[in-house]
């Protein structure tokens, strides 16, 4: 068909968007960022038994400027929130957020004045992973779901940010 006929079987054709998305999802670098017990499960996910490197994610970056993904792994205190916001703002585009566990999703068991009830009130979350804490399989499943999402919509993060900005405007 078309141009492939003339190129033979040595060359594959695709769209630029697909190629970029494939690259993005295949080397999603998470920020080194853990908050509570969920962080322990996240570390286990990165270690040899579950081996997050299978999905091109072994490079946990110590600098948010080199990371595409932030996994909010644990309870977010209100006092911690400015630091998280700052790390998120420092990450370069495009960037994604996973809310790992009950606390990051909704505050979990901490029905308290000191805890943020759901990180999605501040950051645009792409994938929620339920559990308290989620097992490494759960986190990996969430990451694979995120991969699917990245493949499907290249402008995903911008959409989410715009939606969040609209929500904030509404609230203000």
């Amino acid at each position: 068909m078309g141009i492939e006929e003339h190129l033979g079987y040595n060359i594959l054709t695709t769209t630029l968007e697909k190629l970029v998305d494939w690259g993005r999802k295949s080397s999603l670098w998470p920020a080194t960022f853990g908050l509570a017990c969920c962080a322990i499960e996240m570390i286990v996910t990165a270690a040899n038994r579950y081996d997050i490197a299978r999905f091109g994610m072994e490079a946990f970056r110590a600098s948010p400027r080199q990371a595409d993904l932030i996994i909010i792994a644990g309870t977010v205190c209100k006092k911690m929130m400015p630091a998280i916001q700052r790390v998120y703002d420092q990450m370069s585009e495009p960037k994604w957020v996973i809310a790992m566990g009950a606390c990051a999703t909704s505050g979990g068991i901490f029905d308290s004045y000191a805890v943020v009830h759901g990180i999605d009130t501040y950051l645009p979350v792409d994938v929620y992973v339920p559990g308290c804490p989620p097992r490494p399989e759960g986190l990996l499943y969430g990451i694979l779901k995120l991969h699917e999402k990245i493949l499907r919509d290249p402008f995903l993060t911008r959409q989410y940010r715009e939606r969040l900005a609209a929500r904030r405007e509404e609230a203000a």
Partner: protein
Amino acid sequence: MSAVELLQTKFPEEVVEVVEFRGDTTVVVKPGRIVEICQTLRDDPDLSFRYLSMIAGLDHLPQSPRFGLVYNLYSHKNHDRITLKTYLSSDTNPVIDSVTPVWNTANWHEREIFDLMGIRFHGHPDLRRILMPADWVGHPQRKDYPLRGK
């Protein structure tokens, strides 16, 4: 002379009640001369309560007096403990003298109680929030503070 006897002789007006429970002594005192009482317990050469283990704030809402403080003292010399307990006279504007001049460690303990319970310590060198963010409104460990915050 035991700590209780000493307090009863030196501060007969201040000692309200002495409670013994399983070998632990609690002395309930009036809040007015708390610094002198603490100083006496610390400086008495036989007792030597040189170590303040902790201060706790109490909120007994809806009872009155509402606010109280508990001082747990320890004597390394005698391996002895004593608890001082006091109830503040005002339910709306609780104030007590700071014991920071007696034990330096009281500085942060009192800041924590100020932060979470809203009890003010007169004469404290640096009374500001220690746990909650600096711009926080209210004192979250009070009984009438909403669980999820305001």
